[in-house]
């Protein structure tokens, strides 16, 4: 009798502990869920809803069905911005990830002064896009900018281009600046993945008289191939939604030559009050980013990884 009583009591206390744990789990999850609902999920649904209306900021939003979406196909501003966004994100991603690898490989091999280089190369990524764009805007100024002044002093007048005002060049300038800005971050990610390669493998390679290049190509690169893909994808996603850098550097100009989707969206909403249409642009951004992120989640294995 006594024994079973004790056992029963224990069972209920265990049960109670289990229930407490469950309650605590929900309680700990609650703030996150509340914030996500208020600031992400609810606004997202409102964006989607408005994209089906002709909402202009004042008065009521009239349902127009797919009209905004159909209009995208012959909306020159949209096609231009979409093309610019793809060109910009592709160019910037490839260039900054490539540069990142060029910077990371020698540092990983502990080239002379590697720790100083590593410190210096990560200075720019510490600065904000706005600051970098303001500085680079001054340096690339066609008349008094340091770059053109230097080129002219060297007698290379033909290379002193109108970096930020020439329609044919401005996109390259923007990509160049963004890649320069992003290379340090990519470098650091590669370094962290490379440092996971065991020293034995490297030393065995040294003993076998493998050349530096062969070592990189046959040992280091295969190991960082997947991280490389992950960096490439997360970079592309970040560049696809980029706003600060281009907005401050060129404001989308000259004309609409460097206008990307996020700039077009804010202009459409806040300058011409076409909220409905702007929300349609926003939905396009969401769809593209969501597809890319789905791939990213698959490749990086965040959702399933158990550490």
């Amino acid at each position, binding site marked *: 009798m006594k024994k079973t009583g004790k056992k029963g009591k224990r069972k209920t206390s265990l049960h109670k502990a*289990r229930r407490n*744990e469950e309650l605590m789990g929900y309680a700990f999850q609650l703030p996150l869920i509340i*914030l996500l609902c208020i600031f992400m999920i609810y606004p997202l649904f409102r964006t989607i809803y408005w994209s089906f209306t002709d909402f202009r900021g004042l008065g009521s939003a009239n349902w127009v069905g797919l009209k905004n979406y159909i209009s995208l196909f012959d909306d020159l501003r949209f096609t231009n911005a979409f093309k610019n966004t793809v060109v910009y994100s592709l160019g910037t991603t490839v260039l900054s990830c490539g540069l990142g690898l060029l910077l990371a490989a020698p540092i990983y091999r502990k*080239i*002379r002064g590697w720790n100083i280089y590593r410190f210096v190369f990560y*200075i720019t990524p510490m*600065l904000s896009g706005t600051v970098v764009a303001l500085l680079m805007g001054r340096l690339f100024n066609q008349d008094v900018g340091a770059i053109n002044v230097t080129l002219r002093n060297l007698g290379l007048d033909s290379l002193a281009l109108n970096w930020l005002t020439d329609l044919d060049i401005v996109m390259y300038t923007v990509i160049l600046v963004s890649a320069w800005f992003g290379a340090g971050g990519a470098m650091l*990610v590669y370094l962290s993945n490379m440092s996971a390669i065991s020293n034995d493998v490297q030393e065995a390679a040294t003993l076998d008289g493998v050349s530096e290049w062969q070592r990189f190509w046959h040992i280091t690169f295969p190991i960082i191939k997947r991280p490389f893909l992950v960096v490439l994808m997360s970079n592309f996603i970040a560049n696809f939604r980029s706003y600060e850098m281009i*907005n401050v550097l060129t404001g989308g100009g000259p004309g609409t030559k460097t206008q990307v989707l996020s700039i077009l969206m804010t202009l459409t909403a806040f300058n011409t009050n076409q909220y409905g249409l702007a929300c349609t642009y926003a939905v396009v951004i*969401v769809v593209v980013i969501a597809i890319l992120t789905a791939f990213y989640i698959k490749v990086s294995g965040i959702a399933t990884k158990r550490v």
Partner: protein
Amino acid sequence: MNKKFKLSHVPVQIFFILWSFMQLYPLYFMIINSLKTNAEYVVDTMALPTQPTFDNFIYAWKGASGDLANSYEALTISGNMATAFRNSLIVTVVGLVVLCAIATMTGYAQARLNFRGRSKFYTIIVWMLAIPGQALLIPIFRICAELKLTNNLIVLAVLYATFALPGAAITMKANMESIPKELEEAAALDGCTKWTTFWRIVLPISRSSIATVAILNMNYMWSELMFANILLTKNEMRTLSSALVSLTASQFNYSPAGLMAGVTITSVPILILYAFCQRWIMGSVTEGAVKS
């Protein structure tokens, strides 16, 4: 390993020295020009200042007063970086506190607590990574305008924290899972409830992961532009990025040297932090990269 001098390293060294120069020159440019007068800036942006002056900083920091208020120099730098600095500081601190608190709770719940629907919640969190902030800009602006919440720094801070939450929660979960379970089991045997275990054992151990989350998001909150620009319309509520951009907005009101002072004021705290906590920051970035 082998620190011997090698001929094959020469091109790499040349490339690295060039790249270092490209990294450092903009900072040098920023500092020398912030010490010039506008007249001097226009003549030559590359020369050193003939008579270094801190006036740009003073005007940019405080705004001009008295006799100065009528001078050309002062009129061109009407920015009030001191207020912007304070605002950015408020947004960053509040945002990071909210972010770290909620990310820690979520991470612990996901890593250690058993409750129904746990993995479903996690799937939702991961999928939130797919929603870009700018897609939410328009409704958030409208909602804030309707509720009279524009020009509210706390709202902006909580907004930043929310956008950063999915990533931070994922990092925290991964970190909490790597804490040895034995510690908590020992505590449980000593009669600690889950709550006291969390408070007394898990939190102190997780300090470095919390710091990681803070470091990874600090820069974003310090210098975000898009939402700050749209949600903060009053001059005295602007954060640093939006104040800087507003300095360039008007043709008449534009002072290049003053702008460089503003840029310096914005970047120096971050650079000082980087110089002193280099190891820590790099460790955090690395860790964040490996974990996510």
